[in-house]
């Protein structure tokens, strides 16, 4: 792999204005700028015709092909756009005579979790957790686990706020070994479970994602009593208090399905809203309303398909 270093440098810094043309299908994409970089490849904003899209390119043919497989499989999950829509797959013969694999997908506009919560406040926590769990339930039911679920792989698109998945490289068939993970969100790293793909693996990461919003610098893993440390970190955050019991159960792997966690979360949200409405009014009400609207919407979409 050290051998690949020189090529890698080139594929991670394609100058804007470069035309990438597919070797097999011949479609051409104009590179605008780099928008992300991961273990597998580099993502660029690109243009074809009048359309803007995201283009991921890498010399790792096998990993790229697996990602494409996943994106194709997600398309078939009942009437839902779980990942970004896949538009094209091809190879590019670069000027350095190396062949790279690329795929083109829908460009998702949005802000990061951190940005969103800084701007909109913690009152959106419950709603976004419910949304994320809703999507995960669909994914799990289709036989997949997200795997590398982390803040970097999520965006919040606007009006109304909706969590979108932007990188599905870690998506793994249930029962297999998790394909890709990030230590901080990985229950194996924390000594709190295996790396076998099962719904509870994702639910652990969900808890960490919402904890991380309040600890952007993260924190170190202790040698012992690791669950205790995570519990303490949750307890210290006032905004997380209503959800603490649910988050703790997710961390210790008590939920076997996403729906189960979502149900308990909704119970907490609605009972809390009823109390807070009489006291403070506005914020709580609007959040409950969004969740109500969102629930109706998801019922409607599931009826349609």
């Amino acid at each position, binding site marked *: *792999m*050290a051998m690949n*270093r020189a090529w890698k440098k080139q594929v991670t810094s394609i100058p804007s204005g470069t035309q990438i043309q597919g070797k097999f299908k011949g479609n051409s994409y104009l590179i605008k700028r780099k928008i992300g970089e991961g273990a597998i490849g580099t993502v660029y904003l690109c243009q074809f015709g009048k359309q803007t899209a995201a283009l991921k390119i890498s010399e790792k043919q096998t990993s790229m092909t697996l990602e*494409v497989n996943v994106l194709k499989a997600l398309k078939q999950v009942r009437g839902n756009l779980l990942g970004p829509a896949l538009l094209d*797959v091809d190879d590019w013969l670069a000027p350095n005579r190396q062949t790279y694999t690329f795929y083109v997908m829908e460009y998702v506009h949005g802000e990061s979790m951190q940005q969103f919560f800084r701007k909109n406040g913690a009152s959106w926590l419950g709603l976004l957790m419910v949304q994320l769990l809703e999507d995960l339930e669909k994914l799990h039911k289709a036989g997949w686990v997200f795997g590398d679920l982390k803040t970097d792989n999520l965006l919040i698109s606007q009006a109304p706020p909706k969590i979108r998945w932007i990188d599905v490289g870690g998506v793994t068939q249930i029962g297999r*070994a998790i394909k890709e993970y990030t230590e901080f969100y990985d229950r194996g790293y924390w000594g709190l479970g295996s790396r076998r793909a099962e719904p509870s693996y994702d639910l652990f990461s969900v808890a960490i994602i919402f904890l991380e919003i309040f600890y952007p610098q993260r924190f170190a893993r202790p040698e012992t009593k690791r669950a205790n440390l995570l519990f303490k970190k949750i307890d210290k955050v006032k905004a997380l208090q209503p959800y603490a019991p649910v988050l703790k159960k997710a961390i210790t792997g008590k939920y076997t399905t996403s729906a189960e966690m979502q149900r308990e979360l909704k119970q907490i949200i609605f009972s809390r809203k009823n109390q807070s409405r009489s006291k403070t009014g506005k914020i709580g009400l609007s959040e409950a309303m969004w969740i109500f609207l969102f629930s109706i919407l998801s019922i409607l979409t599931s009826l349609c398909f």
Partner: protein
Amino acid sequence: MKKGTLRQILLLTDGCSNYGEDPAATAALAFEQGITVNVIGILDHDENEDSHGLEEVEDIALSGGGVSQLVYSEALSQTVQMVTKQAMNETLQGFVNQELKQILGKDQRLEDLEPEKRGEIIEVVEELGETTDLEVLILLDTSASMHHKLQMVKEALIDLSISLNARAGKNRFTIYSFPGKRKNIQKVLDWTPKLDSISSVFPKITSGGITPTGPALREAIYQFGKKGLLRSIRHGDEPGLEETGY
């Protein structure tokens, strides 16, 4: 295709050998025997990736049919499991490619297929990687300069076992360190399916200035051979993937 056992030697070192035969030649010998040699070069903070003396790392892996990676000790955990899995997939893909050649003709490679069509083949490789049995002999350089890196190595190996044991296939690990006392290598841990017990047995640093990487690799190959022999006597099963081309 018959499912067999993949065999790997994982060499963890921080510098160049200075005693005995050329390790790259020995690695080629291992590859001949159907054993892949992966090498992880652990960098010091004052070194960079182009550091002189670590070229050997790449050479050994290249002739051992494996994967090499240079890394700072903090990133060791992810690297160790990435290298192991990547080498597994490459070996398996090699087998699949050979089968493909028989089906598609001599000059057809996976790269020549349209990306859309590669999907199914890659899926077969992925499935094999999930279910195939794996034996890893970890060969650990314990010369003096590794001193402050051993804690990270230990954590990385425990982590490797967590990752591989999430697969459906069986795993067996053994750990040897080098240089040994009056020997080229020293057994640290006998073949075992899990590595979470290594804390108590983890090797101490050996003093002395020699790094006999070549002779250590030769011993490692011999350890595989010995085990294969023992096993076939005990259980009468065939060792490895020989029939698919090695």
